């Protein structure tokens, strides 16, 4: 029983980070029908901004996190201006290649700026590094902070999407861009807002994740793959699906590693995804409608 509790807790923590990355991917995809392959690098870059502020400049953690979110938003909006807007009428391959180009550019820039400061950069924990006992279970407070932070961000994002005017306009554009245009919504701005919001969530995820793991310029792609897998499992157009997909992948990995063998950690989630997609091609909560805006 103790083993199961430990595995579920670790799966939930890792899964909540996957969910945050998946949310960013889905937000952009819902609005533009494009997968932003630079999402992992936006995540990485924002993480380094938080590191620079908090570790190098001594800025407290919370303002550093907020700055990473703001920076992520700006970088996402810039991705829209550079890689999406000029090509929005081009075919999907061109758009995908443009986002891959942005990814390489950001990775190269990060290598130049932060690549020479250490192989893997540590980010100090925001809570006490000493493990604590909760009901007989040893927990790192940082894990609880990440879990709580992820839940707060997901709730805040859901509120933004449902309660704010900008969120509603994003939803309307995602549902029907032509109708949204006719209703007076400037969809170019909505696309920019979508790219920015997606990257801002990635920025929050990076600042939350950084104290649990380490930062390095090539980290973006592996997180993107996990986030993308979570988004696909959830349905690629469904925001609750992204959360469900991320947490499912985290828990599947953890249980497979604990009960089968650690060699199953990396493949188990993908086996489950393949099975789900065969049975339900739209993912767990995805809709059948999928169109190119």
């Amino acid at each position, binding site marked *: 029983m103790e*083993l199961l509790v*430990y*595995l579920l*807790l*670790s799966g939930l*923590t*890792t899964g909540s*980070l996957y969910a945050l990355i998946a949310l960013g991917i889905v937000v952009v995809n819902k609005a533009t029908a494009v997968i932003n392959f630079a999402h992992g690098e936006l995540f990485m870059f924002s993480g380094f901004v938080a590191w620079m502020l908090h570790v190098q400049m001594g800025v407290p953690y919370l303002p550093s996190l907020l700055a990473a979110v703001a920076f992520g938003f700006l970088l996402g909006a810039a991705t829209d201006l550079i890689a999406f807007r000029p090509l929005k009428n081009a075919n999907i391959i061109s758009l995908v290649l443009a986002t891959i180009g942005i990814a390489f550019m950001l990775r190269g820039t990060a*290598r*130049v700026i932060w*690549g*020479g400061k*250490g*192989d*893997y950069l*540590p*980010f*100090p*924990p925001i809570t006490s*590094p*000493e*493990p604590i006992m909760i009901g007989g279970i*040893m*927990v*790192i407070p940082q894990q609880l902070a990440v879990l709580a932070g992820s839940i707060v961000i997901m709730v805040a994002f859901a509120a933004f999407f449902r309660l704010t005017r900008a969120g509603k306009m994003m939803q309307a554009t995602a549902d029907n861009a032509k109708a949204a245009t006719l209703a007076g919504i400037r969809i170019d701005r909505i696309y920019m807002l979508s790219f920015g919001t997606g990257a801002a969530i990635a920025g929050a995820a990076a600042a939350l*994740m950084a*104290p*649990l*793991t*380490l930062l*390095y*310029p*090539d*980290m973006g792609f*592996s*997180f993107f793959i996990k986030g993308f897998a979570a988004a696909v499992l959830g349905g690629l157009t469904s925001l609750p699906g992204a959360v469900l997909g991320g947490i499912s992948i985290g828990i599947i990995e*953890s249980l*497979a*590693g*604990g009960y089968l*063998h*650690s*060699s199953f*950690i*990396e493949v188990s989630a993908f086996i489950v995804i393949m099975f789900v997609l065969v049975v339900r091609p739209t993912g767990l909560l995805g809709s059948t409608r999928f169109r190119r805006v």
Partner: protein
Amino acid sequence: MTLKRCVKAGLSGLFLAVAALQPGQAQVPGVTADTIKIGSFGALTGPGYLYGKLPMNGIEVVFDQVNAAGGINGRKLELVREDDRCDPAAAIGAVKKLIHEDKVFAIIGGGCSNATVAARETLAEARIPVIIMASVHDGITTPVAPTIFSTALTSSLESAAMLQFALDQGAKRIAVISMRDAWGRSRYTPLIEAFQKKGIKPVLDEEMAPDANDATAQVLRLKGANADAVLVVLYPKPAAIFMRDAQKLGFKPLAVGQSGIADPAAFEDQVGSPGATASFRTISMVRYTPEDPAVDKWRKAIEAKFPGDRLSVFNLFGIGSAQVMVEGLKRAGPDLTREKLVAALNGLKDFETDVYPGGITCVETDHRCNKNPAWIAKEPGKPVRVLGVTKVE
């Protein structure tokens, strides 16, 4: 024939005549009457710079010292650096440039193993003398390439030493946690062979991905198997996650690392959990920590030449390999050729450098010239210390 053609023909003839009249020495690539050009390749940018740029800085301070003392047989040493970014394709391009464009006489280089393995064929075909400074993959030195020597440890030597060290510390239930990418396999496979040679089996054999962010599952399995020692065949990042989660779950075995985690002080910071690395031991290619007074001379040289840098073990890798190259060049004599340098390197026996744990010995049939891994550890709040040396046969 027009006047223009006459001038062209005349200049060509003059050029050929001048070239033919040059002394024989000028035909040796990279060697002039007063200089010897030595090339180096490794990562100058990106996360692998530790194994490229920093050893190269070490080479450069050795060359400066040699040059200040008058050079080798009156020739000053010049270092030409090329960036391979730890990328196999870039490494092939870098060594081709050093050999064919820069026309270096010899090379001290090789940081990341995958890049150096890729460049090996080009280096061997060119028959240029090479001393590998940091790459550990067995495929670089085995089978023997006549002109490629290594002063770095090799992965199979380290794997054998890891098991031996755990046994020497009295471990009875030894487990393995490893990455299974190309780097990991180059160490994991000889490690399992070392177990077989000793007639024992690991109590548990776990895997971890290079980008893993959690090791709860692995730690719980190892704890359940009552492992008293874990051989850690991981990069610093997953190893840091493993050590952190081991502490979280109250699992405190002897953790035995390898030269991929060569800086225990940096590793302690990466783990970020006080006391989590107390039982961690790892391999160093060099016998001194950067703080040791024995390397004061090199600390001062590095800090003077590269302001802002502090001496690191990676600098020491370069210093050791450069000292071996310098010794080879001295022994090759004033009438320098590549063949003479190779013969001189093949004749090194128990050559002592300022940094390696034991003497450097190269023979024609075995170019793994450094077989003496040192063991280092850092207890919480204390400096890194050298525990001892394992001689691997």
